[in-house]
């Protein structure tokens, strides 16, 4: 079975945060919870780069390893999902995650964290596909509809790629061949410089 993958092309990402807004709106994610974020390094300095980060659906996911109640699981296609009805909000997954992906809604009893919420790769959750329960807890299930995740689908510069790992890698490799990468990539001098 194909394995899915996210890839953010830092040469193309323009920090528009469209992916963040699309995700939040499309899944009705509560305030304070961000399934996807755009991180900008060296903002305002030369060499500034932005990258869109969410759950990376790791092969050997640390969150699955540390979960004390086995609420997190991985599908055959690599998508890591959480069962919100099993989750106890202990926050171990957040501590284990190298991407800061797990998020917790606030405002519960005793200031406790609610059930963990994170990027589902737009694949819903353990509930029945397209059920109201799935929509309420996890948002849309675009994978079951045969569509790409919202964030990648709406990315204006097509910096964010999502889908079959091999296809995503091919697209990216093609780009690097054409434009180069790093200091050799296109930019101001390539666009406006003289031959």
């Amino acid at each position, binding site marked *: 079975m194909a394995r899915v993958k996210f890839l953010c092309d830092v040469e193309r990402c323009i920090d528009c945060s469209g992916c963040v807004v699309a995700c939040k709106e499309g899944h009705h994610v509560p305030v304070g919870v961000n399934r996807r*974020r755009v*991180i900008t*390094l*060296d903002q305002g*300095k*030369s*060499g500034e*780069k932005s*990258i869109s*980060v969410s759950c990376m659906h790791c092969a050997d996911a*640390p969150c699955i*390893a*540390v*979960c*004390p*109640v*086995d*609420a997190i699981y991985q599908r055959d296609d690599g998508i890591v999902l959480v069962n919100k*009805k*099993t*989750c*106890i*909000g*202990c*926050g*171990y997954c*957040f*501590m*284990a*995650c*190298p*991407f*800061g992906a797990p998020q917790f809604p606030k405002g519960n*009893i*005793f*200031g*406790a*964290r609610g059930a963990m919420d994170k990027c589902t790769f737009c694949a819903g959750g353990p509930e029945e596909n397209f059920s109201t329960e799935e929509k309420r807890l996890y948002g849309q299930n675009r994978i079951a509809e045969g569509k790409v995740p919202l964030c990648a689908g709406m990315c204006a510069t097509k910096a964010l790629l999502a889908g079959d790992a091999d296809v995503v890698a091919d697209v990216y490799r093609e780009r690097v061949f054409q434009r180069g*990468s*790093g*200091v050799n*990539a296109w930019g101001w001098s390539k666009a406006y410089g003289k031959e």
Partner: protein
Amino acid sequence: MQRVFYCLLLLTGFFTAGFAAFVYAREDPAAAGPIADLLTVSSADYYQALIAEVAGNWQNYGQLFTTLQGQWFWKASLLTITVVPGLFLLHYLVIGAKHFDQGGEQVLFFPLLTRVVHFFGALSFSLLVLTGLMIVFGKYIGGGTLIRSARYVHLLSAMVFVVPACMMLVIWPKDMLPRRHDIAWLVLLGGYLSRRKKPVPAGKFNAGQKMYFWSVTLGGAVMAFTGYVIWGMGADVESVRLAAIMHNTLGMGLLAFYLTHLYMAVFAIAGSLQSMKSGYKPKEEVDILHSRYKYQQGQEAKRRF
């Protein structure tokens, strides 16, 4: 002649410009930040700069926490709750409980205030241990509402436990200070390895009780602080990771102490649970297990509280 002069001038200009560019290029990355020259270096370096921004230095404590929590904490906890009671069962079967003359003369050992403080301490600490274990072994109990409630009870019990723990620190520290005879008690293992009723060197509290007292009060303070950090995540993620590691490691140590205390109170010394309710211990027991304790007898003792 003029051409040579022009050539020299041009060459000097080139060298100066080259040198200036070289110096600028060397200084620029430092001034611009961690990734100004990131794409001339490896993608691993770029990733490290990014991840520091997103989730702290994962390789610092994140990796350690993942390994410990994923593989070791539950195994070590399982070992603690099987091996420790297993050893005590063996002790109970081979050596057995200590029996003292319950009908004989009694000594007031725990005045009312200490009994009340101990009761609330024991209740809340037992709940802490129980709910803590429920969280550790949550996956075998199914998770969900039950374990979520266990977390709430864990928090509430911790808040309750702070009060008796602080009061114990007021009531008992004098009796709990280490003495020289405590070493002898430790060497003897409190005389629990023999059936003979030979006086063991201990004051009001023996070395084991002292160790338990200090680990529960001082260790409890560490547990309370790290627990607070974990609960609210009111610190940067690296501190939260470190707090979780400390909380779970120390928690297992306290669990082992708790099980020991429980065994002593409920099984190893017959009637010991009763004396924590009434406050009185048989004189025979005090003379043997707390041989250095200078107790007051008769009516005088009753007036102390």
